[in-house]
């Protein structure tokens, strides 16, 4: 029959053979960490290895390594996470997706980080794209998008157990079972439980009531059909309970002070989703994804929201000649029911509401000159019954003069739709004791006479990425955006309420409007340096500058100043990953942030939160190929600190202290 190719390696061959190649240590920065290398945007990738080596137990702590992502821990479970400024308990300008499904809460417009939607062990990688991404990801992808990609079940055909125990009542248990039904079909089931003890109050060092218990069960099923088509099914159930102390009732002896009441925040979500991907003979790639989720967020006997959310997403891709065309259609319906038992403190006039939004987008990456110039043009049109219809255009130009250097420029515009909470809810947002007279005063934030319309963000970015040497790469981005029609407030009517006992209460209403405008300017740098095949250093730094326009309206003006001073101007991190030997790793992470000034809700006093520099260390020892023990310490240097005080929701500030954690990971 015929000459089949001969396997034998010819004698004169001086190549390294296959076996040698598998043993060589790579001495260049991994491209896997730059798989967004070819994207004309400020992008950063966190791999599963980076997550493990960070020693972090929560997703927000992992995100601290990305330049331009600002993370501040509020208490033992809550975090304020944002991209490029405007941080808050509910940072409304950052979109967060898990396998393409948004976990951004449209009621509050923000992400509840104390609620674990996915165990860290189940994450394959996290892609972070800072800047406006609305042309692709839709409204609310204003300052950035975090794409969390879960591990494919095929690669996980084994069991795993990971247990952690640490100081401050930290306990965590993760278990996974997985299997292959046949060569093309696989499944994975994982469960995680996490507990964190209460933190100490910054005021007097006694314990707060912020202990957290969170659990997640996640299922994934994958089936590869014919070449190029695949089916994935996800199911997820998550619950969390976290206490808090709300400064709430007026102290009868000292009316300057509000006494705390203990509250229990409970969150539960259930989600079922599926995605089908296929490829036609002509080369059209398509994906259709749908999910149904149910959520319940509440404070026991005081306040509750339930909602059902339905998402439908279609995406297509076709490459021909010099074009790479992407298009998509999305639809979301969210029906909620919300009520509050605090008739005075918080009122929700519309108990039930259904928010519907639909969008369509088209994007083309056009190669003008092969390997050198690429133009990207895209636009998305969205229609929502909160905020109307709007167009989000974007354009990018990317120049790759040599294989190792990329320069890009981007223009984009994006809307943020006001949330249901902003549109409907009235709540007491400020309290002032009897300083100016024999009465108390309170601020109430409420909807204005006109319905809120969308916020608009428009601007540009410049970026430079370069592999300066095989073992050294640099990524730099600069941006400037104009923010228009941001939600703000104006002075409304004044009421006198006599139901608080002997002292009259003057209530100053603040009517929400779209009157704030400003500029956001900044720069981000990340360096990746492989000092030796076993030692890698990664540096990231971000400069963020919020500059709101002065306003003749004193409330808007004050809120603008609060936005400026409430953003940390400098944030940075330096990570060292060092493989001491085949089975030992020593990792260090130096990170810090400059200070900021924030209003301590519900008081109207401003608090200066000092900047900090701290260190995390992790030592891991692999006993066998499948068994690893790691000891990690977090926040090891620097004074005990308050990282954040809650601005909108009343809360008790707590201190972040050094902590230790012992983790065992066993694969079987």
């Amino acid at each position, binding site marked *: 029959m015929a000459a089949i*190719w001969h396997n034998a390696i010819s004698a004169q061959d001086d190549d390294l053979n296959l076996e040698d190649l598998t043993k060589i240590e790579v001495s260049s920065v991994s491209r896997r960490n730059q798989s967004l290398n070819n994207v004309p945007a400020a992008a950063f990738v966190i791999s599963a290895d980076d997550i493990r080596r960070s020693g972090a137990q929560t997703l927000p702590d992992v995100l601290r390594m990305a330049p331009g992502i600002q993370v501040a821990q509020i208490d033992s479970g809550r975090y304020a996470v944002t991209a490029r400024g405007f941080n808050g308990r509910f940072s409304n300008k950052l979109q967060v997706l898990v396998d393409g499904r948004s976990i951004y809460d449209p009621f509050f417009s923000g992400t509840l980080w104390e609620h674990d939607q996915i165990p860290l062990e189940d994450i*394959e990688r996290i892609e972070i794209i800072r800047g406006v991404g609305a042309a692709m990801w839709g409204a609310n992808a204003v300052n950035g998008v975090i794409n969390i990609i879960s591990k494919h079940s095929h690669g996980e055909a084994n069991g795993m157990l990971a247990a952690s125990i640490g100081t401050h009542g930290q306990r965590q248990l993760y278990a996974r079972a997985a299997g292959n039904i046949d060569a093309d079909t696989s499944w994975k089931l994982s469960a995680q439980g996490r507990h964190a003890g209460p933190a100490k109050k910054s005021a007097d060092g006694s314990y707060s009531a912020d202990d957290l218990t969170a659990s997640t069960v996640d299922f994934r099923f994958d089936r590869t059909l014919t*070449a190029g088509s695949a089916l994935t099914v996800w199911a997820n159930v998550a619950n969390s309970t976290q206490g808090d102390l709300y400064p709430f009732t007026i102290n009868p002896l000292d009316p300057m002070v509000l006494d705390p009441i203990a509250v229990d925040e409970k969150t539960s979500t259930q989600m079922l989703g599926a995605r089908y991907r296929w490829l036609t003979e002509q*080369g059209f790639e398509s994906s259709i994804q749908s999910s149904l989720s149910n959520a319940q967020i509440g404070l026991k006997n005081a306040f509750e929201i339930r909602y059902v959310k339905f998402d439908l997403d279609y995406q297509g891709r076709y490459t021909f000649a010099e074009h790479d065309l992407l298009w998509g259609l999305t639809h979301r319906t969210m029906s909620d029911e919300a009520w509050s038992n605090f008739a005075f403190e918080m009122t929700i006039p519309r108990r039930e509401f259904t928010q519907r939004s639909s969008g369509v987008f088209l994007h083309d990456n056009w190669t003008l000159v*092969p390997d050198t110039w690429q133009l990207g043009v895209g636009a998305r049109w969205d229609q929502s019954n909160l905020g109307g219809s709007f167009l989000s255009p974007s354009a990018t130009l990317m120049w790759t003069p040599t294989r190792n250097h990329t320069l890009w420029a981007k223009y984009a515009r994006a809307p943020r739709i006001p949330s249901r909470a902003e549109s409907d809810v009235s709540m007491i947002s400020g309290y002032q004791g009897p300083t100016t007279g024999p009465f108390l005063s309170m601020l109430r934030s409420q909807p204005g006479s006109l319905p809120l319309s969308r916020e608009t963000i428009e601007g540009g970015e410049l970026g430079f990425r370069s592999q300066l040497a095989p073992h050294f790469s640099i990524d730099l981005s600069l941006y400037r955006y104009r923010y228009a029609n941001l939600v703000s407030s104006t002075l409304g009517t004044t009421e006198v309420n006599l139901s608080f006992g002997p002292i009259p209460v003057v209530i100053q209403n603040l009517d929400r409007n779209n009157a704030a405008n400003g500029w956001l300017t900044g720069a981000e740098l990340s360096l990746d340096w492989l000092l030796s095949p076993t030692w890698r250093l990664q540096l990231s730094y971000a400069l963020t500058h919020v500059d709101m326009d002065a306003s003749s309206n004193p409330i808007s003006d004050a809120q603008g100043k609060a936005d400026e001073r409430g953003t940390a101007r400098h944030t940075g991190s330096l990570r060292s990953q060092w493989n001491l030997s085949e089975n030992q790793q020593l990792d260090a992470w130096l990170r810090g942030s400059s200070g900021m000034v924030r209003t301590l809700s519900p008081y109207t006093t401003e608090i200066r939160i000092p900047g900090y520099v701290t260190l995390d260390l992790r030592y891991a020892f692999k006993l066998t190929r499948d068994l690893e023990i790691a000891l990690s310490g977090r926040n090891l240097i620097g004074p005990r600190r308050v990282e954040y005080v809650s601005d909108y929701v009343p809360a008790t500030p707590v201190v972040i202290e050094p902590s230790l954690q012992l983790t065992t990971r066993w694969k079987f």
Partner: protein
Amino acid sequence: MLARITRPARAFRPHWLAALLLVIVSKNFAQPNSEPQLEAAYLINFMKYVEWPASARNTASICLFGRDTLGPLLSSHEGRMIGGKELRILRVSSPADMASCQLVYIPDVEEARIGAVLRWTQGMPILTASSADGFARAGGGIEFVRHGGRMQFIVNASSLLQQGLTASSQMMRLAFRVIGGER
């Protein structure tokens, strides 16, 4: 006086550090072993460890799809004999180019076009290789992965079977992972 003595000493310290780093770096980078270099060396090896169905042609071609990331590293191998055939390095971009390829390499920067390339090469005696994430799962033949500081590869055995290719048992044994079939 004291200041005068201590100042030069302080200024000297960074030089020490720089010198030390330079020693570490130069020591460790004596061997050229960057990711693209290793990938290029792997591709040459795959031409030896994989059997293609019989053919009358007397050339064997490694085709580099899209953006050129390995070309300069492979060009020195062009013209050498592998398994009795003369090695060619081609740059390809369209379905029509596929017929002349034995191995098609898709760099991770062309991740977006993986689906299209796999469709073009379906059922043809072509080995596909890529460093893009999830390439083997998507139906590609060989996926490069970086694991434990080393460059490894995943083989999709069912994909090779569909293309009519046979990987040697030694190659299967050295694979980091074999999917879609028994090792």
